């Protein structure tokens, strides 16, 4: 576990304590070797039911991603409170992880942080690595400031 980090996690289906412990050890090794992974830019304005993707499984474009019968979709609604002050000296992050059967890792979620005179940072992120990597430290350069505040996020994860 990297320094200056605490976290809580719900493990996925079938998870055991030993799996969590052994994976954490492997992640530490991975991070020492490869460091933090930088992300690409965040795209906005396109809903998941209107964008074209070329996955290796059936695509259903019927609208609400929570109700789409993807073979390999994980989704979860997360509801985080609006941050209204300048109390944080760093950031908090609420997200989900998925790991594909070809050993790719993806992550999405939301960050809360005071940046630039009390504005708020939020992020949608994805990390793709061909090795287990349960979570990583985000870099400040990935934060964006916006005048509105994201209070509830529907996270949908697909590999495609």
């Amino acid at each position, binding site marked *: 576990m990297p*320094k*200056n980090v605490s*976290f*809580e*996690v*719900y*493990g*996925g*289906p*079938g*998870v055991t304590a030993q799996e*969590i412990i052994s*994976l954490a050890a492997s992640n530490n090794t991975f991070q020492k070797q490869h460091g933090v992974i930088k992300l690409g830019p965040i*795209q*906005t*304005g396109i*809903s*998941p039911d209107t*964008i074209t*993707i070329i996955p*290796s499984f059936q695509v259903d474009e019927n609208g609400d991603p929570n109700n789409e*019968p993807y073979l*390999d979709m*994980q*989704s*979860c609604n*997360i*509801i985080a*409170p*609006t941050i*209204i002050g300048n*109390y*944080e*000296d760093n*950031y908090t*992050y609420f*997200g*989900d*992880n*998925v*790991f*594909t*059967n*070809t050993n*790719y890792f993806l992550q*999405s979620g939301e960050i809360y942080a*005071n940046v630039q005179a009390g504005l708020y940072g939020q992020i*949608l*992120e994805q990390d*793709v690595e061909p090795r287990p*990597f*349960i979570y990583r430290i985000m870099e400040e350069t990935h934060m964006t400031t916006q005048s*509105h505040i*994201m209070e*509830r*996020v*529907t*996270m949908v994860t*697909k590999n*495609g």
Partner: protein
Amino acid sequence: MMWCLDITTSAWAYHLETYATGTSLSYNPNTSVFFENHNVNSNWYAGFQSSTVQANDAYDGGYPDGPWANNYFCLPNYSMTGSLTNFGTTIWTLSEIPTAIMQGP
């Protein structure tokens, strides 16, 4: 590809990643829902408008899309209530989430 919906603006944001492959998600610790805190000051949570965060309506990525089938808590001594199994809701109490641990370089 991953999406987030901002319910304040009803706008979607997404990342497209062309390198990811696979036909299913794995049932292992990498499939999880989590909250992490990098703050070290004792009142980091004071600026939030409510005292909790929550997760609900979790699907496990299986076929057909099934409910979350298992709960495992890391740091189980903190106040996480509820359950994600069977489309349940779990709640994190912000004030009881530990602050980051200061360590040397």
